[in-house]
């Protein structure tokens, strides 16, 4: 089965970008919300699923959590504890095991948990993340930020350097712009939607 009628699974008038109201001209381009806004779709669902995401949903609120919050651990957590927390959350949020009616939102959450795990389970990336955290950056979740740790770690590995250089410049641009705007895209979207309601 290849049900490639994504519109039929998505919530009605659910635009892939969640842009419902007026254009947001004040936002810098780095806020392009791709990581958070493209729809997830279950491919083999026998029933058509309509999951409506609400603002007070705990899953959606995860966008404002730090990587530690996402994994449900404290900042003094050890590596084995991080691994254990990740696997426990995978058992809850992985789309293969999540309740059929919540697959889409749980997939979003799982991808975030995964990114938190990838950063915190790598000692070098974790140091960078902790440094930023201690410098008081607002730590709402952001795919941009994770990319930045990727980038710095990758740069240490010279064998990869040439291959990734082109990609890195794009990432660097985005992560730097991100620093100028500490509020996550999701937070801005929520504020905007609340303002317009």
């Amino acid at each position: 089965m290849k049900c490639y009628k994504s519109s039929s699974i998505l919530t009605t008038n659910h635009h892939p970008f969640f842009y419902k109201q007026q254009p947001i001209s004040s936002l810098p381009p780095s806020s392009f919300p791709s990581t958070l806004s493209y729809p997830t779709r279950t491919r083999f669902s026998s029933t058509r699923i309509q999951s409506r995401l609400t603002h007070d949903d705990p899953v959606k609120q995860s966008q404002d959590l730090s990587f530690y919050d996402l994994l449900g651990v404290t900042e003094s957590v050890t590596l084995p504890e991080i691994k254990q927390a990740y696997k426990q959350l995978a058992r809850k949020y992985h789309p293969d095991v999540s309740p059929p009616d919540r697959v889409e939102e749980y997939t979003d959450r799982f991808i975030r948990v995964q990114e938190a795990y990838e950063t915190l389970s790598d000692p070098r990336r974790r140091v960078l993340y902790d440094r930023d955290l201690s410098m008081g950056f607002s730590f709402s979740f952001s795919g941009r930020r994770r990319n930045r740790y990727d980038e710095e770690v990758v740069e240490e590995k010279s064998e990869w350097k040439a291959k990734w250089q082109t990609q890195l410049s794009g990432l660097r641009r985005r992560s730097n712009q991100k620093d100028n705007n500490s509020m996550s895209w999701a937070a801005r979207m929520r504020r905007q939607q609340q303002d317009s309601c």
Partner: protein
Amino acid sequence: MAEQEYTVASDSENTAEEKSSSSPSLPEIAVGIDIGTSQCSIAVWNGSQVHILRNTRNQKLIKSFVTFKDEVPAGGVSNQLAHEQEMLTGAAIFNMKRLIGRVDTDPVVHASKNLPFLVQTLDIGVRPFIAALVNNAWRSTTPEEVLAIFLVELRLMAEAQLKRPVRNVVLTVPVSFSRFQLTRIERACAMAGLHVLRLMPEPTAIALLYAQQQQMTTHDNMGSGSERLAVIFNMGAGYCDVAVTATAGGVSQIKALAGSPIGGEDILQNTMRHIAPPNEEASGLEFEEVNRKVFEECERLVVQCLRDARVEVGDIDDVIMVGGCSYIPKVRTIIKNVCKKDEIYKGVNPLEAAVRGAALEGAVTSGIHDPFGSLDLLTIQATPLAVGVRANGNKFIPVIPRNTMVPARKDLFFTTVQDNQKEALIIIYEGEGETVEENHLLGYFKIVGIPPAPKGVPEINVCMDIDASNALRVFAAVLMPGSSTPVVPVIEVRMPTVDDGHGWCAQALNVKYGATLDLITLQRKM
């Protein structure tokens, strides 16, 4: 099973046939199938454990071939060869798994040209011409059709034994298969009336079996949280695959995958070519020398996989070796040396592990619950190959790197290379090569309506999304600086879109458009 019904659908664009009307209350347990280059097997969860089905000749490992005789082709499930020589008359087609989804410029196809059936290449990047000798005439067929005929036989055999219709399957596939090749496997299944729930990279099926064994033996229900690291080396007749998995509490997290189309067939051919005449004993040294490149590739795959997984050799708990070639002493020595282990894991049968894992996944994905927790399992898959786009001239720019855990969603920004460029080609590739030619083309589409602007100003976002069932979708949006609203509707494309002739459509695009519709990665403007 005297009467045989072949219900292979025509090989056209009708993969979306649906919908089996099985009773909604009782989920059908998907069967697991391991399609091997030389042997296949089929297994199913029987309520308490995995049961491997046997054919009428009481074989669990069924030779993968189809003979074309007169009007009716017959596969190796029901058909018994009068003599092994029958495989060499040209009437039997085999090695489907090596040929499926490959174009006639592929070295693997060229290596197949000395098989007894006809493999004809024109070397222009189209599917090779394949034919079986029937009554002294070459009868054309396709690897998909051959595989479908074989799968129909497997299905009939399973239905007869399980006394129920069999529709849903989990198949194991080589790590190195491109998404295009995966669609060919799905096509063959659709032709055989089978619905693919999952296509599992072979070592990940073994990882799942291992996860179940660990869970059963340690009774570790996330209690200690201790994680076991295993290296899985799987080498059959056609492919060599490696995985590194971290297992705890029934969760198998695939940390890295690596694969290559080398296998026992290559070893056999090398040995026959260099150590002919046959029937003459080859010395061990000679054998190792003529197959040096194969063995080096095995070693390279393991080293690469460990590096990608960021695993230190000292942290490896188990080394699992499966597949027919895992019995070759030289291969065992190589893997033991790389992993610095004296012992190979003994808990799995090297020839049955993959199909057992596939059957477990079949039960898990079918939503079957086991009161004893034997199915309390989860595989977190990783992408075996990077997916990305063509940009910066002829470069392949990965958007989702290889060994990214799935589900995954990542994006990159690109921009125009010409002033007032109104359109851009998004050409999607999969692979590891730095230039696009080294990778598999998956598809392409055009973005139109880019507002007039100097080159480098428009911001084109390409986002890729892989869901838990490995479906890849590509999104593209055009943004202008200072606005985060796409200026034209976002494009969403399910990949792959290429069908036949994918080898040359990229070249055709290049001839037609040159660099006029090119993209480069967006540089930061200070």
